[in-house]
């Protein structure tokens, strides 16, 4: 028993670089050799899926991209899956960005899904409006008069010359909004300044750390579900029946979480043994 306690104490005082190494190995192995753990869709993800599934064909949907490469593993699979779903159901997609980096992320997703997978026509099936500075002021601008805010698209084409922009004046002309967000400005600003005042339904995909912040809006019905972090993205991929990066990432995340929990348990065991011994002496 004493040998075991000594071993736990020794582990408790281990250099943090060993922890880094163990975690790196725990993450790498499932990435190289996926385990294929089952993905169970949560209620919030199902609501997002069903809301998009129930939109009438040819609905005009605004997709807003608010993340950067740092959260790409979490947010990008959501954008890919949502775009797939929208194009599969023949909806018209309008893409805006509240973050400057979001423009690059959106372009990458549109190239993969709209151009390569579905062969959609730019200007007829989708429009890429891009980034405008101003945070919530941009959201308010889209709500009141999108044409005043966006006179040209990302490719510097005049909005008036894009056929899909015919009849689009403000936010109320859209049937649905999906915001893929990693922070400020993002989902919260869309709820407060756009979806809630106008009554246009919206859903969102957020990083795991943001879920706490947006959950009250989901529970109150101001948002139609939420994709919560990489698990949310993986669940959406499962509902779409098309596995992607999020699904393959979930094995690594599962093992990493388990390893962290084991570290916490070992750390606490060492803490208790140490406390017991210090009381004894």
């Amino acid at each position, binding site marked *: 028993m004493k040998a075991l306690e000594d071993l736990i104490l020794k582990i408790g005082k281990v250099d*943090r670089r060993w*922890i*880094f190494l163990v*975690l*790196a190995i725990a*993450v790498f192995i499932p990435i190289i050799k996926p385990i294929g*753990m*089952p*993905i*169970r869709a*949560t209620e919030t993800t199902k609501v997002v899926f069903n809301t998009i599934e129930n939109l009438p064909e040819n609905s005009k949907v605004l997709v807003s991209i608010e993340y*950067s*490469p*740092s*959260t*790409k593993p979490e947010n990008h699979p959501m954008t890919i899956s949502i775009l797939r779903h929208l194009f599969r159901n023949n909806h018209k997609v309008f893409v805006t960005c509240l973050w400057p*980096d979001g*423009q*690059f992320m959106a372009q990458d997703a549109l190239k993969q899904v709209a151009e390569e997978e579905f062969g959609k026509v730019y200007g007829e099936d989708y429009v890429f409006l*891009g980034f*405008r*500075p*101003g*945070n919530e*002021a*941009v959201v*308010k*601008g889209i*709500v*009141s*008069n999108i044409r*005043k805010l966006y006179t*040209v698209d*990302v*490719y*510097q084409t005049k909005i008036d010359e894009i056929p899909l922009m015919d009849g689009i004046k403000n936010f109320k002309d859209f049937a649905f909004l999906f915001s893929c967000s990693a922070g400020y400005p993002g989902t919260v600003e869309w709820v407060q300044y756009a979806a809630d005042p106008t009554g246009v339904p919206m859903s969102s995909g957020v990083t795991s750390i943001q879920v*706490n*912040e947006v*959950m*009250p809006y989901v*529970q109150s019905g101001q948002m139609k579900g939420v994709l*919560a*972090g990489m*698990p949310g993205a*993986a669940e959406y991929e499962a509902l779409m029946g098309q596995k992607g990066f999020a699904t393959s990432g*979930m*094995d690594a995340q*599962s*093992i*990493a*979480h388990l390893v*962290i*929990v084991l*570290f*916490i348990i*070992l*750390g*606490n065991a060492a*803490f*208790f043994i140490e406390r017991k011994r210090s009381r004894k002496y």
Partner: protein
Amino acid sequence: MIWKRQIPILIVAFIGALTLFGWFVEEPNIQAFVDDDATQWYDILASFAIILGAMNLMKMQIQKVARQKKGWPYSIVAIFGFLFAITAGFFIKGVDDSVAVWGAHVTTEGTLFKWIFDYMFTPLSATMFSLLAFFVASASYRAFRIRNFEASLLLVAGIIIMVGRVPIGSLISSWVIMYIIVLALGIGVNTWKKDKKITFGVVGVGIIIVTVAGMMTGWPLDKPAIFYLPIIQEWIYYYPNVAGTRAIMIGVGLGIFATSIRYILGIEKSYIGE
């Protein structure tokens, strides 16, 4: 003095009041101001603020290099990075006008700016964020300790969320959780009564009850649902978490309201340096 103090306060009070009442007044001109003009003013001011911010950044970094303050070599990298991005953004596109016009070049494949984003910014940004996983692991190992009731509650909730959110959580049977609860109950009874017989009695009875119940129901993975990790984590997200977040949101909202009123009434004057 009047131009430095009274006039700015008057402008803030007037614009603040107008913007606030614009939400409540059915007057098209006021609404147009609040919805369109004021937001465009904000955009213009924000653009100037970016220029000022950039100039300030350069000034600070150049001063750091000139005076060879601690970490000055990093400032050289910052200065070169800044100048490189400015050059790629405003002076050298890297492609002809037939490929991308100025403005569109920012996101067009083959341009210098896109190259910077793809091969410098993206890897650096992703690396910095990825390192968080290692620090989280190390920090939770050292800091997550069962020191008191609140810390224990936080620890248990954290573990449930961490395991319940990922697929591995859905593979853990609710019966395993019930056995763990019985053992935890045993620890609690032992700490309270400090009697081995009572502790063994409680643990033994608990294990028998769970085992008999499991054999009778056929050990379903996700039943009883209240002991199934994905269900428990969903409950934590939906109720205790939302309750706490709402309280914070209401507090923040009241704080913003109070501060706004202070600005409109001219009580808060930090923006003029008072």
